[in-house]
Structure formats: C-alpha cells, structure tokens
C-alpha cells in the first residue's frame, strides 16, 4: 500500500528513519538540482544536499504539514548552498574577466563551441547576486510559480518579480557584453 507524503512526514517526525529515507528518495533530485544550480559544482552540491536533508531531519518538528514539503526543502537547500558558497568562495568565478571569449574580435570568430557556451552561461549565472540567483534557479530550473517562490523564500511576490527581472537583465547584459547572447540569437 502506498503511503502518502503527509503520512511519511508524520512517521519521520516520530523518528522513523525509513519514512525519512523515502522522503529523501523523492526529493533528492530536486534538492541536488537546486544546490547545483546555485553553486555550479557537483561535489559541493552533493555536500549541500546532504546538509539540507540533515537540517530537515533535525528540524522536522518545525515543518507545518499543510505546506509544501518540496518548497520547505528548497528553502533549506538555498540556505545550505549559500552557506557552502561562503565557505568555498574559490569555486565561483571572480568577475566577468573569467567569461571573456578566447578571441574578442567581432565576427564569426565569436561563435564558440557549444560546450564553451554552456560553461559561459553557467558562470554568468554564478556571478549573479545570491538572492537573485536563488529566484532565477527556482523559476528557470524548478519551474516554480512566483507564488511558490514567494512562499519558499519567504519574500513578497513583488520582490520575486523584481529579483527575477533584475537577474535576467543582469544576465542578458553580461552575456551581451561578451557578444555571446547576440551570437546565439543571430545563429538561432
């Protein structure tokens, strides 16, 4: 018989480790994805994801059953990723200098390989301020609605909108500075 998530949470709150393991299995992928998009390093992401679930286990009694467990975990995950990044500052690119293309001349030479493009976009995301990056990650990669992001990060919907606008504008500006997005658009 399949047990509902609410029941699993209730059992986990009573100390049932198997029930909590089941919750981990359900949400591991989403949590790891969030922390990976926040910090851009697989190993640090897995450490942050572990920390997320340990913190969730330790504070499970404070979880309110009528709210979304996924969003509650995402909130812990964003905090865990932020803490991890503060400890491991070296993994983030320092500036847009790290994003410069090999050849800065205008023209077809600007079109870099697909792999390089992906690395550049990922680095540009990592250069965003943490608060804006968290909103962008939850929206773009986890597909959360503005309302869900608002609830997850405990910020008003208006702030979600402004942070998302800011993140996308900054990202666009940074990538356009490197003629990268333009190249993507031209060759699309």
């Amino acid at each position, binding site marked *: 018989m399949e047990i509902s998530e609410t029941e699993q949470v209730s059992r*986990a*709150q009573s*100390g049932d*480790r198997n029930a*909590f*393991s*089941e919750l*981990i*299995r*359900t949400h*591991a*992928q989403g949590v*790891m*994805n969030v922390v*990976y998009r926040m910090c851009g390093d*697989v190993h640090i*992401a*897995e450490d942050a*994801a*572990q920390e997320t*679930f*340990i913190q969730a*286990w*330790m*504070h*499970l*009694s*404070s979880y*309110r059953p009528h*709210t979304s467990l996924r969003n509650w975990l995402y909130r812990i995950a964003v905090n865990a990723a932020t803490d991890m990044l503060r400890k491991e500052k070296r993994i983030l690119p320092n500036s847009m200098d790290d994003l410069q293309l090999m050849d800065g001349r205008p023209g077809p030479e600007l079109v870099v390989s*697909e792999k390089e*493009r*992906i690395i550049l*976009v*990922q680095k540009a*995301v990592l250069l965003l301020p943490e608060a804006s990056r968290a909103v*962008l990650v939850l*929206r*773009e*990669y986890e597909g959360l*609605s*503005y*309302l869900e992001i*608002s*609830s997850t990060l*405990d910020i*008003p*919907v*208006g702030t979600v*909108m402004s942070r*998302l*606008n800011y993140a*996308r504008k900054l*990202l*666009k500006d940074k*990538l356009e500075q490197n003629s990268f*997005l333009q190249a*993507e*658009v031209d060759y*699309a």
Partner: protein
Amino acid sequence: MPNHVTEWLNAYLDGELQNGRLHMVKAHLVECKTCQAELRSLQDLSELLHKVPQPEFTSPERFATQVNLLLPQKPVATPSSSLFELGWWLIPIGLLAAWIFVSTAGIVSNLFSVANNFGLLDSTAAWLVSGSSDAANWTSTLGQFSLLEGNSLQWFKATESYSRNVIPQFVWQVSIAVLYLAWIAIWWARQTRHPRQQRGQPIEG
C-alpha cells in the same frame, strides 16, 4: 511607441499575468517591435539557460543511504521551539488564572469588609479586611484636623474604603486585559502571516 511593457515581459513570459494586465501586454506586443525584440531576447535567454545540462548526481537510493548514515538517532525535537510553544499557550492560561484570582480575592475581601462592618469579625480576624486600619485612612487624618465633619466625614470614609478595594482590583484587571489583548494581537499576527504569504498577491491589471 511610448509606454513600453518591458517591466511586465518577464511575468508575461512566465505565464504569471492575468486579466487586464495580460490583455494590455498582448495588445502592446502586437504593435511594438521594441517589446517584441525584448521578449525574444528573454525567450532566447531562457532557452540558453536550459541548455546548461544537469550533471550525473549520485542516485537517489544511494544518496538516501548515505544521508541516513549521517543522521542523528532521532529527529531533534527542537526543545526550544517546543518550550516556546508550551510557554506561548501558558500565557493566556496564566492570565485567566490571574484574573480569577484577582476577582475572587476582591469578592472575598469585600465579603470580609461587609462582615467587619456588621461586627461579625472579631479583632483576631480583622487583619483579613483590607484597608481596615483607621490609622492609614486619610479621611480620618482630615477629620482629626476638623477639615471634615459629620456627614461629609462619613461619606468620605465610605468612599475611601470603597476605593481602597475597587481601585487596585480595577488596575489589576485592566492590566490583565491589556496583556491578554496584546497576546491575542500577536497570536493573530502569527496566524495570518503564513497564509497570506501562501496566497500571495495575484498579478492583475
């Protein structure tokens, strides 16, 4: 074209606009090439972001096993929050108990006063009557200096005796009521905070 809708394009792209605002943005996009270009660049950006692949993570089963080994024996019952919750609900109970005590003490005190006035209490029980000491009465003092006489003196004595019982009771009960109302206000704020955030505000025109 004036009045571009660039500030709403992100919400439009994410399907977060409703009603009037949605129609306004749609209508504007039909005619405005600047906003069309801006929307296209946002769409391109979104597509680009999704091209960043997700790496191979540890499988959820293995990850769950790894985490399970790191977990403390029992979930921490967060004693501080439990104690806080317990203390939180003890506040109104305590206030109610205090109110009952103050009211009962007032009634009992008044009963003893009445009994004392009728001479039903002997001298050993007179201490039970609050404000019964004549030496402490300011009306008696005024009477000694002949500032109050006859009926006026009696009336002031009765008033003073009454106020000595009633005013402290009144002050206590008002204090308890203020504390209780403050507790209700905080409780209401706590209750409404989260549901409001979950409902959020629809983005409408």
